[in-house]
């Protein structure tokens, strides 16, 4: 056995540090999926009639769909009748202050490094947090501060109650309920999520973020996020997620919709750290997510940054519809897979407006026996004069048992378009490791250093404090996958 393999074997113990469960009384729906369950969820959430109708329509459409299998992933299809579609921590319906939140719950989020206590954050960097556990939003911080500027940041359920006109107008406008299999499923059974509205000309004074946590066993998590940035506004949004270690595969099928009006800008960053399963590939989250934004007005800008380190299977293509003239779409991605993880991820850039620009930077890192695919579409429609795209897809392989794949689709209907695609595949060189070793840096640290360097272009896009988190996370995920 070569030294490479020895090192590889020696370090394959990568611990998932968020694998704890919280003992909280749950209020759950019975297992399985039917119209009755859809009604049950809607009733639990005291929803208006129009939303129930919307859900039922989505459910009926979902029944006509087949689960897609074109992605470069293999997994046992979930049994949709064996999933609990609604599970909520039992608590008082209205929380006046943090003191009323179940202390176990606060403990959970504090273990995750998320403080829901606004006072504690006042000295440091301000980040408003919406914490979602299983099916419901637990607590949204800094709401009053934001409200002064007219910014609405709350759970999706509250938005339905308090701002039905906005929800009605934008929900399903970017990702329709019939968009795809998982989006339809989500539309039928979504339980909560975050809602955010930035009014005209307002620059959101702090990072907004949502933390998702799957806690209960046997449940699926189906949340929706809807962000609306009105004309000339700006917001930077971060999403983080973790789940306990369980032997079963849990399904996470979320929908994120972003509407960016004229001259507005949205930065959406994700640090995805769902439980990836154990070293043998047992358990872990199926992460089947539909994320899409529309640059609806002229000069709108949408930038996706994702650091994907978790999940057993990831199927996710955060996309930009560049409808407004001179609108800009960006996608920066780091996807790391280790052990038996599989990721099929990338983006779609749909150029509709004139002089639209898109940029794709994808960095895949595969280790262990994992499979990591980039799948991306650049589509330039007929009227999109002078569209520009630049795509760069790099793959880094560690060891000899993993795979990296690239599936770029380019579809251009306008001759004035400039579309560039660059791709590289590399391995961490033995000479690079030796060079680091010779300077006193051990192999594990050297790998973290080299991988972080490789991903730098993407990590630089993250807000400062999250970039640091992401770097640590990369090192943790790759602990031991090294050769």
């Amino acid at each position, binding site marked *: 056995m070569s030294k490479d393999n020895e090192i590889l074997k020696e370090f394959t113990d990568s611990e998932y540090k968020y694998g704890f469960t919280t003992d909280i009384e749950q209020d759950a729906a019975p297992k399985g999926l039917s119209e009755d369950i859809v009604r049950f969820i809607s009733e639990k959430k005291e929803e208006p009639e129009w939303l129930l109708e919307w859900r039922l329509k989505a459910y009926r459409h979902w029944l006509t769909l087949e689960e897609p299998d074109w992605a470069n992933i293999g997994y046992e299809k979930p049994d949709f009748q064996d999933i609990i579609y609604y599970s909520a921590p039992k608590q008082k319906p209205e929380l006046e202050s943090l003191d009323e939140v179940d202390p176990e719950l606060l403990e959970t989020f504090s273990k995750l490094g998320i403080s829901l206590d606004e006072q504690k954050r006042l000295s440091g960097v301000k980040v408003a947090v919406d914490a979602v556990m299983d099916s419901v939003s637990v607590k949204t911080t800094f709401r009053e501060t934001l409200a002064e500027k007219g910014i609405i940041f709350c759970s999706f359920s509250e938005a339905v109650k308090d701002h039905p006109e906005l929800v009605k107008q934008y929900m399903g406008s970017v990702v329709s309920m019939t968009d795809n299999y998982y989006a339809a499923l989500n539309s039928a059974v979504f339980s909560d999520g975050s809602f955010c509205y930035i009014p005209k000309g307002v620059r959101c004074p702090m990072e907004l973020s949502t933390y998702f946590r799957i806690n209960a066993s046997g449940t699926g998590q189906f949340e929706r996020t809807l962000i609306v940035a009105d004309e000339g506004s700006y917001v930077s949004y971060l999403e983080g997620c973790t789940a306990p270690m369980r032997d079963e595969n849990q399904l996470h099928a979320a929908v994120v919709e972003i509407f960016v009006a004229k001259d507005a800008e949205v930065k959406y960053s994700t640090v995805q750290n769902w439980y990836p399963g154990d070293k043998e590939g047992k358990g872990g989250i199926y992460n089947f997510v539909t994320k899409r934004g529309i640059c609806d007005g002229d000069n709108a800008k949408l930038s996706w940054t994702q650091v994907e380190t978790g999940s057993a299977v990831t199927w996710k293509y955060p996309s930009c519809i560049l409808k407004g003239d001179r609108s800009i779409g960006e996608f920066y991605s780091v996807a790391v897979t280790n052990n038996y993880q599989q990721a099929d991820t990338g983006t779609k850039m749909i150029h509709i407006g004139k002089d639209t620009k898109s940029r794709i930077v994808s960095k895949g890192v595969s280790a262990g026996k994992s499979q990591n695919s980039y799948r991306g579409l650049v589509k330039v429609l007929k009227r999109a004069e002078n569209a520009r795209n630049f795509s760069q897809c790099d793959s880094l392989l560690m060891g000899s048992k993993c795979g990296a794949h690239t599936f770029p689709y380019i579809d251009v209907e306008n001759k004035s378009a400039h579309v560039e695609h660059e791709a590289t595949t590399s391995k961490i060189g033995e000479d690079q490791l*030796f060079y680091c*070793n*010779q300077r006193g840096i051990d192999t594990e640290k050297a790998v973290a250093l080299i991988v972080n360097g490789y991903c730098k272009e993407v990590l630089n896009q993250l807000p400062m404090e999250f970039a640091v988190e992401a770097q640590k996370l990369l090192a943790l995920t790759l602990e031991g996958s090294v050769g």
Partner: protein
Amino acid sequence: MLSIKNLHARVEEKEILKGINLEVKPGEVHAIMGPNGSGKSTLASVLAGRENFEVTGGEVAFEGKDIIEMAPEDRAREGIFLAFQYPVEIPGVSTVNFLKTAVNEVREYRGMQPMNSVEFLKEMKEKMQLVEISQSLLNRSLNEGFSGGEKKRNEIFQMAMLEPKLAVLDETDSGLDIDALRIVANGVNKLKSKDNATIVVTHYQRLLDYIVPDYVHVLYNGRIVKSGTKELALELEEKGYDWIKAEADII
């Protein structure tokens, strides 16, 4: 400081070092010369602990410790530095960041507190002058897009920051023009003290005009076949290696 006894080493199945003996004391500068393929770079790599070089016999003691089984990072932390013939590029990692990691790893091994950014930058500013290297170069990705001269200067800069007890310079003169050579040699000379030692591995005598060795050893076919003082280097410059080869082959 360094004691090598009857060292044998091979790469894959090929024996390259066939019984090297060498004693290096603090304050000394040793030059290892020899024709291409004689095993000079192999010796440098074996001292640094490169994994594809297998030691098949003999002893290497550094400050009394047997280092043959020691991991390369631990040898570095003990104070052995190798200036690479072909410095490696690490995209996205700045020299500053790389060196800060290295310096603090070494300090941790020696039971010292890590250097904070302020101390580190101060130290760096001082050492930068030694090899006339600019801050902007150090902020760029390690060795990426550096010229040959910049890479070698960066090696000596790293050496200055890490303050090794034993520095092994592997063909540091290769690919350098005369000005760069002078700068690099100057740096090495300024770092010299009575407590540290330097092994200069080179093919040409030219570098030794600037870094004056106390001893010169000629390596041929995996053995040191001749040792002398700096005059030996001049003789080699004048006569080439053939006469040494001839002498050695007779034996």
